[in-house]
């Protein structure tokens, strides 16, 4: 059956692609603009400029996403395929996941600006890098997990049929990791908006750096104290989040269904209008046609890298010698790193800073605990209610998803106006600011958990006329528990990160500061004191790791063994 040569659908798709290309070309041109004041793009708060700023922000987050995917492919494959690499790479990833990304910004900005002097490109790289660090770890873990749990017989078939390393990667490894990668990519991307907004306007060492973007637009509006312009920017932001979901993530999620390994269909097929449109159109196949020979060339060029195979036996002494060399090199690097760190701190901030950080970190920890506890009390009952009603959750789920993706930092000005009016100290207000972004993870997951409780069990509870207490204790709470744990750990992570921007805020001529590790890091960044920044990051990572080990890990295990449906 041949499709007609040109249909109305094709026109739509063609126009969309043309616009996209045009936009990217226009933006690419402006990326490397160098002006006299290279690092302070003048941000005009005229709303007419907003589309341009929004496009710049959008390009930034997509570049960061692309880099995260490349990083994930390399890092996850190395960790999954090499025994020695795994020993080093997985613990590193585990730690990186707990590091507050915003704290890093001071260091990376300085580094990248030195790399591209006199150009906006350095600042652009720093912002992209910050967004990248917020997305990459999660996706890498997901792909690593998919690779090590790959079905044995698929691995055997790939080796048996003598696929090359390259072919195996694209035919087996990427497709079998696809579903996890898309879902985690979507969640990470949602988180990335926050870091996008936070990284476009920053001050390091008494200098303020700005990049044209929606985040810096809001920052400029806040400086002017113009709450109306902040409101418009927020509207644009909502359109961006919803739009990217509609044109990019929904189609991708629906497309990824193709890569489900279980050969039976999943119960509910994700649908996407955009994907259907693309499938109707013949343009994608026109684009794919010239790419096929390119793929074949790549297959051939990568052939010398060898088969996705390994010798069954290798001489014992060779393996031993490799292990010894590897252990020696790794050990030496660690010892050297620790030594350099100790020397660095001894000569700069001094170790007394660590004690101070531990104390301040405890204050922030209390805030994080309050955020999680209060969000739990508020959102668990509401989330369960929504999740148990299929009709409600169908409407609520996308809204909550947008709320979770929306960079809460853009809402801070409104909150600050209220704090100022009420004369509320930021010591308490910071809790509210931290909760603005992180609470949604709990709601989101609880809804998902409640709607996953099987209908039969709900009907059983109705049929036996469970009183509400029993219903909660024996059906709802155990049912949502595993989901709640996921939501809780994400919310806590988000709150830690948010503390760096929430414990010290500026609105117009008002400066509010709260005591805490987040404020400490932010102040050290403003001063340009890298030793203090580093001490703050180390201590914050330490708190995150300890809480994860002592609280969330055991809860996870309990959820997996006892409460998985």
């Amino acid at each position, binding site marked *: 059956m041949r499709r007609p040569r040109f249909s109305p659908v094709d026109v739509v798709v063609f126009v969309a692609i043309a616009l996209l290309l045009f936009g990217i070309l226009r933006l690419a041109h402006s990326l490397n603009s160098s002006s006299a004041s290279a690092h302070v793009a003048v941000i005009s708060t005229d709303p007419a400029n907003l589309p341009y700023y929004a496009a710049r922000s959008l390009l930034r987050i997509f570049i960061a996403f692309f880099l995260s995917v490349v990083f994930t492919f390399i890092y996850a494959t190395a960790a999954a395929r090499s025994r020695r690499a795994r020993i080093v790479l997985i613990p590193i990833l585990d730690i990186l996941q707990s590091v507050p990304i915003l704290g890093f910004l001071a260091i990376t900005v300085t580094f990248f600006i030195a790399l591209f002097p006199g150009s906006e490109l350095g600042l652009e790289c720093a912002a992209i890098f910050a967004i990248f660090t917020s997305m990459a770890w999660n996706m890498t873990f997901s792909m690593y997990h998919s690779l090590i749990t790959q*079905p044995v*017989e*698929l691995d*055997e*078939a790939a*080796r*048996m*049929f*003598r*696929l*090359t390393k390259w*072919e195996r990667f694209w*035919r*087996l490894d990427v*497709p079998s990791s*696809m579903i996890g990668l898309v879902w985690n990519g979507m969640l990470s991307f949602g988180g990335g908006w926050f870091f996008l907004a936070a990284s476009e306007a920053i001050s390091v060492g008494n200098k303020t750096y700005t990049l044209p973007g929606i985040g810096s637009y809001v920052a400029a509006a806040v400086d002017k104290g113009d709450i109306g312009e902040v409101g418009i920017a927020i509207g644009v932001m909502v359109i961006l989040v919803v739009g990217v979901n509609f044109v990019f993530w929904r189609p991708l999620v629906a497309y990824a269904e*193709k*890569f*489900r*390994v279980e*050969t*039976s*269909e999943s119960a509910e097929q994700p649908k996407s209008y955009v994907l259907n449109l693309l499938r109707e159109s013949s343009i994608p196949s026109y684009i794919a046609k010239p790419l096929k020979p390119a793929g*074949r060339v790549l*297959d*051939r060029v990568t*052939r010398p890298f060898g*088969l996705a*195979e*390994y*010798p*069954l*036996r290798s001489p014992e002494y060779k393996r031993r010698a490799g292990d010894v060399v590897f252990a020696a090199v790794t050990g030496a690097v660690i010892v050297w790193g620790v030594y350099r760190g100790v020397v660095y701190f001894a000569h700069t901030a001094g170790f007394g800073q660590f004690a101070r950080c531990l104390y301040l970190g405890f204050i922030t920890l209390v805030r994080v605990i309050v955020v999680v506890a209060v969000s739990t009390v508020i959102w668990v009952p509401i989330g369960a209610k929504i999740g148990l009603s299929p009709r409600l959750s169908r409407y609520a789920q996308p809204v909550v998803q947008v709320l979770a993706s929306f960079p809460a930092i853009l809402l801070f000005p409104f909150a600050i106006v209220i704090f100022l009016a009420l004369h509320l100290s930021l010591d308490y207000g910071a809790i509210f600011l931290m909760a603005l972004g992180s609470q949604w993870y709990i709601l989101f997951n609880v809804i998902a958990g409640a709607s996953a409780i099987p209908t039969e069990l709900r009907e059983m509870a109705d049929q036996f006329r469970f009183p509400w207490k029993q219903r909660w204790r024996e059906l709802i709470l155990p049912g949502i528990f595993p989901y709640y744990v996921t939501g809780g750990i994400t919310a806590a992570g988000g709150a830690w990160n948010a503390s760096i921007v929430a414990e010290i805020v500026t609105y117009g001529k008002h400066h509010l500061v709260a005591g805490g590790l987040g404020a400490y890091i932010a102040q050290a960044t403003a001063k340009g004191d890298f030793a203090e920044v580093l001490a703050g990051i180390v201590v914050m990572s330490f708190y995150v790791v300890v809480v994860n080990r002592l609280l969330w890990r055991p809860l996870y295990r309990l959820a997996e063994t006892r409460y998985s449906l």
Partner: protein
Amino acid sequence: MTDQRPSTAFGPEPTGDVILEVNHVSKSFTTPAGQPLPVLEDVSLRLHEGEIVALLGKSGSGKSTLLRCIAGLIAPTTGTVSYRGTPINGANPGVAMVFQSFALLPWLTVQANTELGLQARAVPPAERQKRALEMIDVIGLDGFEEAYPKELSGGMRQRVGFARALVVQPDALLMDEPFSALDVLTAENLRTELLSLWGGKDFPTKAILIVTHNIEEAVQMADRIFVLSSNPGRFKTEINTDLARPRDRRAPEFEAMVDRIYRIMTERPTPEAGQQTTVVEPGLASPRDYPLPHVSVGGLAGLLEILNNLGGREDLPRLGRLLTFEIDDLLPIVDAAKMLGFAEVADADIELTAEGKAFVEADILTSKKLFATAAAAHAPLVRAILRALETTKDGTLSERFFLDLLQGGFSQDEAQAQLDTAIDWGRYGELFDYRAGDGQLILTPADDMAA
């Protein structure tokens, strides 16, 4: 032949060139307790051009492990596998494999799946497509080229598995229980088609090695049947099936051969020369030497019930056919009945004992008591657990204690499966109970014990 093989070969060695040679291969895995767990012991085998060889064995005979050693997917602990005289150290270049679970890539179409091996061999696209389409045609998948595996039935999926393997024209085709995931009719259909292709002159491969636990399948397909014993897998016997093709399942010679193999596979392991020949009463033996067959009490009672209705005595192959049970379904239940003294097996016939008859015909409470007595006396692991629980003050012990002991002789999964079976039996007989919350085994107090 240079290897010292027991002289049970029933005919002359085939004359075709040797494609694959397995030379004194042993394979052992390591138990979680760190002890070696032998799976295969000193197996030697040759595959010649022009023959179909079946590797037949019960579960635990290491037949799939042997096949993976031959395919070069895992390394034998000792011994070598050679392809055309060259020892292999990596995926065997001269074979292609058909998997039990098909192992198709769900994101590729039938045609792309079929082209997979050709692509890996850098066959140019045009030729690749031509050869794949030809093979798709031969294997009966015409019209399904653009379908994805998940749109196909099991039988059609396995056809793709065959097409993918045959299109690379391997010297030898390896098959790992290729029909066991299919329903009976589909399996029969696919088997017959494969055999008629094998009989044709254009068949792209020179020999077939098939792993199976289905005796009739082996007799229907193979020129030589290589029977492996279990725990660990050792060479047991080799049978030449010189029946004329196509083979008729209802022919008396066919049935006679199936019966003969049934007999070989159900007889007690013959003690090897040099080992003590006194038969140990299983109840007094160690749980490691007499593992519990993985059988639920319900399945056991069901089989005994049927046997009783059939007059208390039945030919095993007929019983298997009657229940459409394959040997891996039937033999564990038979072994359990034998272990508990509810049935006896002689010459491929199973006969209900007096205890067995009493167990079947009693009311529920009495039959529980009878079961408890039999399990405590004859099932080594149940007996060992009882003894251990009786020595403690509160009659409670952690499952970890038993798992650690079992892991000295079994793999982690098998140790768990052994304990699960013992718990099932112990609970049914009300000998002891198991509390999942904290993983404790609890002795049932004497006053409400059924036994």
